[in-house]
């Protein structure tokens, strides 16, 4: 319902509910060596509504984690703006930015690296509270215990150290820390990919419960498409620093307007031998080209099964356009991809 790339496209009636986050044409270039630069994120725009979960998928090197860091302002953008709750974060500096950060939290991939091994769990969770001078000592301890309970851990574990916990429990600690300041938006960067299947499901359910309970908005970054499909309201697919497709998750899984999305979906193995024996891979030739020197025109044309090369695909970059309600894609031949005859579309 809400996927305007540019504010101008949105009819006045829909503007009633402001997005919590509006990212406009954000670009991040990393300089490599003397003259070269990697366009890790190359002109990305999107909105995230309050209470929504936006999934962000793509293969390694597509810029999804960089985008997560740009949103939380862990790294500054080269250009473009990140408007969070009416404030343009890219223009804030120092104290003003620090104060905004309490509304924007992050959960990291590696539950072993993201917790300080020399701090107790209680101190780890209390640190954001101390940082912002919230709550006095006794209230803080209470709050820490409450947070531990909320994430399904024993509240009396607050004096233990991270190494005493398993991966799944540590991820719960990371979640408790992210919740400590009652944030509005949490960027989850591959929060379950380091966990075992049975634990993964526990954490996903926990994230869903917390979202309902505290009215959280998530940006959920992952490479596992089945996890993203499960948790997201909308999914955004990235390839070489650009968004290639955005759609409500069920739409996206039923009909793909971009050949890359189609290939990505066809590559997920299904835990059912009967389905697997019939499944056909949309095989992509080769691997992701170097982001140092991305292909001309549509970045995907070198691996695309339907590309016209030489032709429009290698010469012109396709804009991210509306293909149907709430479904945007950046492909010159998106209409061919969504054929009306396709079942389930």
């Amino acid at each position: 319902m809400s996927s305007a790339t540019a504010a101008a496209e949105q009819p006045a009636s829909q503007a009633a509910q402001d997005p919590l986050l509006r990212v406009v044409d954000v670009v991040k270039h990393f300089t490599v060596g003397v003259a070269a630069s990697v366009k890790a994120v190359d002109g990305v725009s999107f909105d995230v509504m309050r209470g929504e979960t936006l999934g962000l998928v793509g293969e390694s090197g597509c810029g999804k984690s960089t985008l997560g860091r740009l949103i939380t302002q862990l790294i500054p953008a080269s250009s473009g703006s990140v408007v969070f709750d009416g404030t343009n974060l890219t223009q804030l500096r120092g104290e003003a930015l620090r104060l905004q950060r309490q509304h924007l939290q992050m959960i990291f991939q590696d539950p072993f690296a993201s917790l300080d091994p020399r701090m107790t769990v209680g101190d780890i969770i209390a640190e954001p509270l101390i940082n912002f001078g919230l709550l006095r000592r006794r209230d803080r301890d209470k709050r820490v215990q409450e947070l531990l309970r909320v994430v399904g851990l024993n509240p009396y574990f607050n004096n233990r150290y991270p190494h005493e916990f398993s991966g799944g429990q540590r991820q719960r600690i990371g979640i408790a820390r992210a919740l400590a300041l009652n944030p509005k938006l949490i960027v989850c960067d591959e929060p379950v990919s380091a966990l075992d299947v049975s634990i993964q499901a526990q954490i996903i359910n926990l994230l869903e419960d917390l979202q309902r309970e505290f009215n959280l908005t998530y940006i959920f970054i992952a490479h596992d498409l089945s996890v993203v499909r499960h948790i997201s309201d909308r999914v955004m697919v990235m390839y070489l620093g650009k968004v290639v497709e955005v759609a409500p998750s069920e739409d996206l899984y039923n009909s793909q307007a971009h050949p890359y999305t189609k290939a990505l979906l066809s590559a997920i193995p299904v835990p059912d031998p009967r389905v697997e024996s019939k499944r056909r891979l949309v095989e992509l030739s080769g691997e992701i080209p170097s982001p140092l020197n991305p292909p001309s025109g549509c970045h995907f044309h070198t691996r695309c099964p339907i590309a016209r090369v030489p032709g429009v695909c290698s010469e012109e970059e396709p804009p991210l356009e509306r293909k149907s309600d709430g479904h945007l894609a950046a492909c010159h031949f998106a209409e061919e991809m969504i054929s009306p005859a396709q079942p389930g579309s």
Partner: protein
Amino acid sequence: MTLLKVDNLTVSFPTSDGVVQAVRGLSFEVEAGQTLGIVGESGSGKSVSALTMLGLNPGADITGSVTFDGRDMLRLSPRELQQIRGADIAMIFQDPLSALHPHFRVGWQIREAIRAHTDVSNAEARHMAVDLLRLVNIPQPDRRVDAFPHELSGGMRQRVMIAMALALKPKLLIADEPTTALDATVQAQLMELLASMQREVDMAMIVITHDLGVVARIADKVQVMYAGRAAEMADANTLFHQTHHPYTRGLLASLPGSAITSSRLLPIVGQPPSLINLPSGCAFHPRCPFAMDRCMREMPSLMAVEGGEDHLSACYLPREMVGVSVAVDTARQRYAADKQGLRAVRLPGVAAAREEVPALA
């Protein structure tokens, strides 16, 4: 013909905290040309058992036997093992970057594997290396043969590992999480490659993975492991559709996007057990939605599931309990019970306490 027979294998590691019982009585067979998938979560003993078969676990206490091609691998001298490793049994590891030596060109490393076992000249070996790289679909193999590992992408490195493993046409290939570190599209390409190579070379394969999807695609037979023991063993179709062991069912119900999960996932409650201090009886009983008194006292071994041919399960549940949907219903009830805190006493650490938490201000 039985190529590999593992019989009652146990592997334990003495540590200062106590004895880690990594593998506790594992038995299985692999036929020539067949693919066995071994599925389990971290700490289930799947990698340890594979390493043990190849004599790569010095310092471990090992009992039982591993018979490969008529020889007991556990009784061979290091020299004899060396002749088998790489030639008759090859292995692919999870992380190709740490499995390849950063200092040597990939062609050199493939040549080394070839020349360690055969009498070919250096030039011939190089020629073979180029052919192998071509076989695993590496573009420009005559140039890539001189590349260093860091010059290749993760997928390419894993292709190099596969080329090296296939160099001497082994009878058995052990692939330990071969695609876990790779992206989905690359993973799909590599699994296709492994399957086609297997047909070409006619070798048996053991694919160790935590991903049930990978197993569904490639395996003839699947063994599910939990806490160092086999929980269930069957051909792939039976395992996925007439699932018996509650752990296997739990794994299937935990997966987002599989047919049986609805809007809410059904995780297995609790945590995997410590291998130093294992639960009594069936190691899965503290997390099992069906656990009976007997499960806490007796340790079940693999038994034939009634009516199922070659379908083995280490669980006392009666035959009627076969099938995934029964399990999902029960798990749902169990989960609801957990949420109400009814089982909080028996299952410490479960999200049971959540309900009483007042909403945060």
